[in-house]
């Protein structure tokens, strides 16, 4: 049991190190940028600001100090919860992120669940009958989609369903001109539908391919042979031996793919002008809104790295042999 705690602890320390590393790299990258933060802050007001005022802003923001000092200041204010002010949205960064994250998490969470469920089912089906027509079709689907950019899928969906058939709205998370309080759940779902499909499609392909390989492996194993010898039906074997054993690896992959999910949500949100974290990232990057960009980077890293850490730990649960070296050594010592 002790080794378990140690394993999780090591993973958590790693997580902290990764976050710290990303903070340093992101800060350096932003400092390297040729975009002047004061110009970006002033925007169109730039003509009305004289050199004295510029100097004042520079001093107030501490831009005249060495980069190291600036970094320490920025990090300490981050750690105390002060994320800064976003010029793009004219609101505090913490507010922007929490509001955007709430609408993004619905999209990403649902896409995550869908791609997991559908991808897993398809993978089990394909893996249970390797070489059959259903397997070939599922594999073809997965291959082609793995090569398709998310934003192009989104554009195609838009062309077919929003413009051609007029079934779905073309943009945003709610009808234009409506107050957020008046929007019904049905309308919300209606607007969520296409981004959701665009985002799920890629995830389905990945999970399906992975589960299929695992399933083929399981179907060739001794315990399945034994079950078959005992007269178990195909359905019985697939449900009780196949799906159970393939579930944990699939969930692991699902957690490890949060990075791609986040990237995909940036693209899907841009195509459908969905007001989530992804479109905020683009705005921050294009307008040079440094505090927002840095905060989003750290939020995204936290989100994805936690996913990776969970995947690591689950991997460990799925196959304890991976850490057998330390455990075997402990066994000898005790």
């Amino acid at each position, binding site marked *: 049991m002790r080794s378990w705690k140690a394993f999780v602890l090591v993973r958590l320390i790693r997580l902290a190190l990764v976050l710290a590393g990303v903070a340093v790299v992101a800060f350096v990258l932003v400092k390297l940028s040729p975009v002047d933060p004061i110009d970006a802050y002033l925007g169109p007001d730039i003509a009305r600001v004289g050199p004295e005022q510029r100097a004042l802003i520079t001093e107030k923001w501490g831009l005249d100090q060495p980069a190291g000092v600036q970094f320490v200041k920025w990090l300490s204010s981050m750690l105390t919860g002060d994320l800064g002010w976003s010029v793009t949205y004219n609101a505090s960064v913490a507010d922007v992120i929490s509001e955007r994250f709430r609408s993004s998490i619905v999209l990403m969470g649902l896409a995550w669940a869908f791609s997991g469920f559908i991808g897993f089912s398809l993978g089990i089906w394909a893996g249970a009958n390797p070489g059959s027509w259903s397997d070939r079709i599922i594999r073809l689907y997965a291959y082609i989609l793995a090569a398709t950019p998310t934003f192009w899928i989104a554009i195609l969906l838009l062309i077919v369903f929003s413009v051609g058939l007029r079934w779905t709205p073309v943009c945003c998370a709610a009808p234009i001109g409506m107050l957020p309080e008046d929007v019904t759940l049905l309308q919300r779902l209606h607007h969520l539908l296409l981004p959701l499909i665009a985002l799920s499609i890629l995830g389905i392909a990945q999970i399906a391919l992975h589960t299929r390989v695992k399933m083929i492996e399981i179907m060739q194993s001794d315990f399945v042979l034994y079950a078959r010898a005992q007269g178990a039906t195909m359905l019985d074997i697939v449900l009780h031996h196949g799906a159970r054993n393939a579930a944990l690896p699939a969930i692991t992959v699902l957690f490890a793919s949060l990075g791609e999910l986040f990237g995909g949500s940036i693209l899907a949100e841009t195509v459908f002008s969905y007001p989530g974290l992804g479109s905020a990232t683009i705005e921050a990057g294009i307008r040079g809104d440094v505090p927002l960009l840095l905060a989003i980077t750290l939020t995204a*890293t936290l989100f994805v790295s936690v996913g*990776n850490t969970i995947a690591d730990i689950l991997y460990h649960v799925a196959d304890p042999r991976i850490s057998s070296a330390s455990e075997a050594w402990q066994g000898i010592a005790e």
Partner: protein
Amino acid sequence: MTVVVEKPPQTPSLDRANPALVATGIAVLLLAAVLLAAWLLGSSGLASDFQARLQPPSWQHLFGTDMFGRDVLARTIKGLALSLRVGFLAAGISVVIATCLAIVSASGSRLADSLVSLFIDMTMGLPHLVLLILISFALGGGTTAVVIAVAVTHWPRLTRILRAEILQLRNAEYVIVSRNFGKSRWFIARHHILPHLVPQMIVGFVLLFPHAILHEAGLTFLGFGLEPGEPAIGILLSESMRYLLAGKWWLGLFPGLLLVVAVLCFDIIGNGLRVLTDPKAGRP
């Protein structure tokens, strides 16, 4: 003393890489077409013709024309040529980074190993697209920024594979024998280890290539990197967004379709090569 010659469990054969051959054919044709067309067209195909704005596909303009009357097919081919160039450079740089880091990480120093592994965790822990945006923001855009951004986000997986390969090779019997003969580390690295890494590097390169193209397209689609007027697939698609609502579907359909065909071909070639070089791997 009898010498038992073990047959390899499964000889790599061309049959198993059959789809790869087809894909190679298509890819070579596509490459030739793109290069030839880009060269033949020069800049003539990109000229604006306001008489022929937003025309649907016809025999004269197979992919239709855009808002300035430019031929979409010509722009798509130009864009694909750019994508291939960016992908080629980025994947190449990625392979070099991966090889260097794998060698450093497998060199025996534990500190170097954990540092490299921290780098890998960092790159995997940050969504690629966010890192791409950060890097192109830092470098102020341009083709070079896109190449560098794509190159520095794609090395982790290959690094892991190469590192595992080196660690395995270091303990191989012939390397130990060679070491006992008093050969230098440099000699062993050059004559015993590097030749084994080359197939992995080639496969890694071919598999990275389509990913690099996809990321380049995504980055340019979002408006980072290249100038708006330049013909890149991502920019073509992002420009098409404004005209989709007016029913100009060809602007969005064809450039993406050609991109998918190109990516798919290189993906299949890469997987075919992997099967050929590693008979154990089987179909992915």
